């Protein structure tokens, strides 16, 4: 008999082990993420010049925000879009669809296995190095950490949902490459990774408030740097949950459409 839960958990374990085999990527990955933080740290330092506050961030909050956002990305980033798109193009999706599991769930599980790996071998050591090199100030309250971990998990969920949606698009456009590249750029920019959203000109910031991307980096980062406190934290979590639920709709719909397309029209 197919035992759902344990099989799905096994996908997490297997992906975790697979990731372990690719060590070169992650040694260099840590270095490059540290470099990214460093470059932005010095860029912002040059911008702040003497001191002051930009978009509600002090220079020291900006440093922490940078380190936290890049390290969060080290965890939530994955290539599910590329994997799904490849499965679709080489036709192996058909086999996936007839197996007794939900393909999207499997992909999410694999993404989570990858995330766990990245969390332990990428994010934590990377964070340690960043704290050694740059004046990063992390909160000490355990609630802040607990809250951050929960939000981080939602960052992962929302980012992965966007990836799955982009990946499934390969069913409906001939070459998905362009969309995947676009998504990557949009997520990095609009999630607040490169520039905190409060620094954007008002109208652009307003638009981003209505998009799911800010829930990936900007909102959790703001909470963790202490810019949002108290009741605001619950609001942030609320926004994340809301986007998680809202994104389920197009994801499930696309999945249904894909199955239909595959079985009715033969791919």
């Amino acid at each position, binding site marked *: 008999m197919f035992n759902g839960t344990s099989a799905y958990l096994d996908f997490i374990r297997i992906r975790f082990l697979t990731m372990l*085999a*690719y*060590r*070169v*990527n992650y040694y*260099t*990955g840590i270095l*490059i*993420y540290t*470099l*990214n933080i*460093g*470059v932005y740290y*010095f*860029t912002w*330092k*040059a*911008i702040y*010049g003497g001191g002051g506050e*930009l*978009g509600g961030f002090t220079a020291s909050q900006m440093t922490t925000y940078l380190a936290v956002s890049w390290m969060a990305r080290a965890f939530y980033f994955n*290539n599910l879009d590329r994997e799904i798109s490849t499965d679709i193009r080489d036709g192996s999706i058909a086999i996936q669809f007839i197996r007794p599991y939900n393909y999207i769930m499997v992909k999410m599980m694999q993404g989570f296995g990858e995330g766990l790996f990245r969390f332990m071998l990428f994010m934590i050591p990377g964070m340690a190095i960043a704290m050694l090199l740059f004046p990063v100030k992390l909160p000490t309250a355990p609630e802040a950490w607990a809250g951050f971990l929960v939000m981080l998990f939602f960052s992962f969920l929302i980012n992965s949902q966007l990836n799955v949606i982009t990946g499934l698009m390969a069913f409906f*456009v*001939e*070459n998905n*490459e*362009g*969309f995947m*590249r*676009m998504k990557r*750029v*949009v997520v*990095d*920019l609009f999630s607040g990774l*490169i*520039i905190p959203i409060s*620094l*954007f*000109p008002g109208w652009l910031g307003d638009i981003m408030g209505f998009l799911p991307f800010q829930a990936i980096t900007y909102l959790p980062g703001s909470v963790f740097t202490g810019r949002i406190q108290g009741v605001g934290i619950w609001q942030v979590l609320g926004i994340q949950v809301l986007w998680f639920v809202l994104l389920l709709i197009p994801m499930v719909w696309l999945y249904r459409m894909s199955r239909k397309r595959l079985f009715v029209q033969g791919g």
Partner: protein
Amino acid sequence: MKYYLGLIVEYLKNYIKTRMTYRADFWVEVISDLLFQATNLIFIFVIFMHTDSLGGWSQGEVVFVYGFFMVPFGVFSCFINLWGFSERYIVKGEMDRVMTRPAHNLFQIFLENVDPPALVGSIIGIVIMAVSGSQLGLPFEWWTVPAMLVLTISAVAIYTGIYTALTSLSFYSDAPTGILPLMYNVQGYGRYPVTIYNRAIQVLLTWILPFAFVGVYPASLFLEREEMRNMAFLTPLVGGVFLLIGLTAWNYGVRRYRGAGS
């Protein structure tokens, strides 16, 4: 040489024929490339909304450097596209097919992956340079165009060297994803005035992953910034050295792939 030039033409023809079947994709790709570039421009504009100078460089200058940066990058992305090399050529075994043909293997791989939409970026880069250059009142000298050509070729050589060297790691490690995407972040840092970074990052971007030579150094020649002029002159040399390193690493990698001397 004539043989290889002929092959370039032939492969481009095939590319165009392929693209005739997927015309919509061409534009999606162009737009996504442009969006990628736009992100970086947005970054520059947002920064300068909050400050007047970045380490002593004005917005116009930083935008000009960005325009320059786009030119060699577009050329490089068009002709040297090693994304997914490991997946396609090592894991799926296409390398074997390449090896049974009478042309240099790396050259064949470059040609099989030409990506002309990327050239649109180069054109836009030139436009950006022209616009911000005239706003800054930069002089147009007799040497401007030749220097642009030499510096572009040198910068493409630097990219080629670095990416070829990194891609040749696929012959050693069985990682399917590689570190190329990560490099995409790093290369962008060479288009800001590197003097704002600390010593370690400056050294890194100048001598180890010399991305400063594909952006701010050569562009400073046109901006007439004295402090980087010598670095600008050094660009062709760095290009030559890194291209050599890249090709050597590649040839070693291929040797290993073929099981010789490992």
